[in-house]
Structures are given as structure tokens and as C-alpha cells.
């Protein structure tokens, strides 16, 4: 009896070894990230030898003109792309939900989700060619190209949470508004939009993070002197790496984690 008492009770859900692999998996998933963050506070200039706590690499990154420039560009780009993508995605979501399936609806879905299916490198190359032609033909330079490219691949990310929110929304309030002689615009402005707002906010946040993190398409589309933070980092990785890169990475990680955590709070279903 004592012998059996020491054994774990038989559970139909348990499979031997699975828990250990899962825990290992979580540890392996977080070890590199934690290491990266820890060494951003290293006083020494090597990444693997700890020489004491210091914020010098954050100061160095903050005072680095190239980093400042890239940070501002990244933030402006992400804000613009997220604004445009969310506006377009909201309209598309209003158009494609709560309507009887019609011919062409599948085509619209496929078109909206297309950036998720085509390898990024192929889109990047395609945009490189297109924009090269346009630049030669019109002579227009500037951030427009990056904004257009980022807006396009952010649309599906903004669209998904907005559509999910719309599909879960109750129609009765809108019907009630219409019954009380609200015009369609008033109903939309005063009822639909406020109800939809958490979805729109969530979509905008995802679009912002996706734009902020993009490397491949930006690397191909950018003109000379249009580095964003990720493309700047990619260029630096070819040189001697100092913990300054860790500091920049940690800052970017922090932004992503904060935005994504807020996203989870917003989209969580009230239980």
C-alpha cells in the first residue's frame, strides 16, 4: 500500500515525459531572451562576460544619432501604417461581416489575407521592382513607399481582431437605434462604432507592432538613409557586436510586450 501511495495517481490526461519536454520548451524559449536583456545591463563591452551592472549601453544608444534617427523613423512609420491599415481594415470588416455570403466574398477574404500567405521575401522583391520603376518615372522620393508597403501588409493583422469583434457583436442595439428613428449614420456613429472600438484599438495595436518589427520588406524598399530600427540592427550585426544592440533590442522588446499585453487585456472575453 505504501508502495502505491508514493506513486502519482493515475491520470488519463498525463502522458509520460510530456510535462518535462513542455517545461524544457518554456525554459529554452525564454533563456535566450532573458540573457539578451540581462547583458544589456553589462558594464563590460563583451556579451558573454559579466562585469557588473551599468546603464552605459542605454546611454550610448540614446546618444547615438543613427539610433535616434532610426527610432523616430520606425515610430512615425508604424504610427502612419497602423492608422491607414486600421481605417481600411475597419471599412473592409464592416463590408464583409453580417452580410449573406455572396459571390466574391471568398475572393475578398483571400485578397485581404494574401500578405500572410506569400513569403515576405517575394513581396519584398516585388515591391523593390515596382518602386524602382515608379521612382525612375516620377522622381518622387521619401517615406511614401515604406508607408504604402507597411500599410498593405498590416491590413490583415488589423482586420482579424476587428472582424472577430464585429462577428461577436449583438445586433439588437443597432436595431433598437434604427427603430428609434436614428439615421444609418447616427446608428453607426453612436452605436456601432463605440461597440466596435475595442476591436479597432486591438487591430491598430497589432498593426503597430507588426510594422515596428518588420525587417525584410523594409530592407528591400528603403532608400539610402532610410534605416528603421530593425534594419539598422541588421546592419550592425555584421560588425563587432557590443551590448548597445542588446540595449536597443531590450527597448524594442519592452514596447512589443507592453502593446501585446494591452492587446490581450482589450480582447479578453469578459468571463
Amino acid at each position, binding site marked *: 500500500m505504501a508502495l502505491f501511495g508514493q506513486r502519482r495517481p493515475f491520470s*488519463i*490526461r498525463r*502522458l509520460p515525459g510530456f510535462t518535462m*519536454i*513542455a*517545461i524544457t*520548451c518554456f525554459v*529554452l*524559449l*525564454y533563456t*535566450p*531572451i532573458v*540573457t*539578451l536583456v540581462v*547583458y544589456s545591463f553589462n558594464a563590460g563591452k563583451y556579451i*558573454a*562576460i559579466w562585469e557588473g551592472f551599468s546603464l552605459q549601453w542605454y546611454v550610448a544608444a540614446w546618444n547615438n544619432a543613427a539610433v535616434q534617427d532610426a527610432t523616430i523613423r520606425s515610430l512615425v512609420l508604424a504610427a502612419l501604417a497602423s492608422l*491607414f491599415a486600421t481605417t*481600411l*481594415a475597419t*471599412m473592409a470588416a*464592416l*463590408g*464583409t461581416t453580417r*452580410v*449573406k455570403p*455572396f459571390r466574391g*466574398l471568398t475572393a*475578398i477574404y483571400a*485578397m485581404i489575407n*494574401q*500578405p500572410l*500567405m*506569400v*513569403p*515576405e*521575401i*517575394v*513581396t519584398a*522583391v*516585388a*515591391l523593390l*521592382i*515596382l518602386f*524602382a520603376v515608379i521612382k525612375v518615372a516620377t522622381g518622387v522620393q521619401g517615406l511614401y513607399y515604406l508607408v*504604402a508597403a507597411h500599410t498593405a501588409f498590416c*491590413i490583415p493583422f488589423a*482586420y482579424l481582431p476587428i472582424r472577430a469583434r464585429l462577428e461577436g457583436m449583438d445586433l439588437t442595439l443597432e436595431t433598437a437605434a434604427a427603430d428609434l428613428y436614428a439615421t444609418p449614420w447616427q446608428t453607426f456613429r453612436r452605436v456601432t462604432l463605440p461597440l466596435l472600438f475595442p476591436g479597432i484599438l486591438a487591430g491598430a495595436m497589432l498593426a503597430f507592432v507588426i510594422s*515596428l*518589427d518588420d*525587417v*525584410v520588406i523594409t530592407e*528591400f524598399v528603403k532608400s539610402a538613409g532610410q534605416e528603421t530600427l*530593425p534594419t539598422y540592427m*541588421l546592419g550592425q*550585426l555584421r560588425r563587432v557586436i557590443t551590448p548597445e544592440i*542588446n540595449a536597443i*533590442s531590450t527597448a524594442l522588446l519592452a514596447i512589443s510586450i507592453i502593446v*501585446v499585453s494591452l492587446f*490581450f487585456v482589450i480582447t479578453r472575453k469578459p468571463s
Partner: protein
Amino acid sequence: MLTETAGSGRVEAEERRKVRRSWLLSAPALTVLFMAASGPLLIVLVYSFLEPAEYGGVVWKFSDEAWFKVVFQRDIFDGTLSFADAHLMILWRSVRIAFLTTLTTLAFGFPTAYFIATRPASDRNIWLFLITIPFWTNLLIRTFAILEVIRNEGIINTGLKLAGIIDQPIQMLYSDFAIMVGMTYVYLPLMVLPLYASMERLDFRLVEAAYDLYASRLAVLRRIIVPLVKPGIVAGSILVFVPALGAYVTPRVLGGGKNMMLGNLIELQFGAGRNWSLGAALSITLLAIVMIVLLFYVRAVQRASEARQ
């Protein structure tokens, strides 16, 4: 009789109006997507059939040379044909690495998803959140994190040296192994999430029934759990395989110049290689492989939903 047709006519008109409204609302998004995502793919196709210009770009003259070069190479001296070993090797390496990455993410992801799905309902969201956080953080940063762990002056080598186990660092970086470790790391969440989605719906009464009928744990896993979560396995595999095949950042950072994958070969043609036509042809090749895999996936999903009915 007359009023009835008039009524149905009005319903039809109302339907048509709604459909038109759907198209109008979707039009701006579709326009931007066509201009900056789908449309340019057509230009790539056109470019793959043109002659490359000397300093990048193309000459507007039809040529199938680029497609020819994807597979064959002509000897510069005697003009004999042979297979383009370099291209085929990179293509083969890309497929192999993407496939192995899919297998390793499955090996780690399956137990992890199962673990999350069998936690008490209140804990599941926390575990799931822990998986999702890396998924939404920068791929370049995660690749860089792996670089710091496995490079010669990295954590593993420094640790082993300090422990006196090795004198010389073990060269792990700039190899296919490094690319595989990095890609398994960055794409793991893409495997776990769809697997979890199908395991969450797993009916454990079936598992219990199997045990009652004296099935071993292995038999339960093989005959009950795996068949039931197969849609998740297929979806996860596709979600990992597709971006892994077209990967650019991870092989560039961890593979170095010699261990290229298809994405890097394409980049090379638009950069130092200055052969945009060949780059375009290689891009279409990559796109075609991805589309075939996705088509296979859609078929598998359809078959599964038909089987359920």
C-alpha cells in the same frame, strides 16, 4: 400574385444593395493590397521573362534565360550544359532545413501544446500568453538572442570554457545546424498555437474509454490523440514550413555567407549578383512551392471536414 413578385423583387434589390455596399467598403483596402502586395507579384512574373540589364534592372526583351538558369548552367568555355549545382543545392538545402525545422518544432510543440491543454482552465491563458509573447516580438531580436547563445564568444562556449570542459570554442555558428536551431526557436509558437487549438477541443472521454479497454499509453497517443488532433498538426506544420522555406533573416544572421537559403539567393541576385531576371524567376519558384503546399493544406482541411459530416 402580383404583389408577391414585387415583394421578392424588393428583397432582391435590397440584397444587391447590400452586396454593392460590401464591395464599396472593401474597395479601399483591396486597392491598397493590390497596389502594394498582390499586383507587384505580376511584375515579378514579367521580369522573370526579360533580359537582365548589366547594372541591375532589366532590358525589355523576351528571354527564357533566367528560367533556364534556375535549373541549368552553361559552361563558359565549351558551352556544355549541366545542372546548376549551386542553385539546386540551395533549393534542396532550403527544403531540407524547412522540413527538419517543421519536425523539430513538432517534436517540441506537441508535448507543449498537450501540456497547456491539460492544465486547469484558469491556468491555460497564462501558459498560452507565455507562448504568444515571443510570437509577437521581433524575429530579428529573437534570432540575435540565439546568436548570442551559440556564437564562439557566446554563453554556451564561455560557460564550457569556464567549467574547463573545452579549450577551444565549439564552432556552432554559420552552419546549417545554427540555422535550424534558430528557426526552430523563432517558429515554435507557430506550431504550438494551432496544435493547442485542436487539443483544447479533445474529448478526454475517448481517452478514458481507451484506457478502460486496456490500451497502453503509447496506443492511446497513437490511435486516439494523434488522429483527433491531426488538423492541428497539419495546420502547425504548414504555418512553420511556409515561412521557414522563404526565411531570409535567420539564415542571413546565423548561416553566414556560405550557408544560403533560397531567400538569401534571391536577395543576392538583386544585390551583388545584379541579375534581376534570375532573382525574379527564383522568387516565382519559391512562390510556386509555397502555393502547392497551401493547396495541399486546403485539400486536407476540406477532406477532414467532409469526413466529419
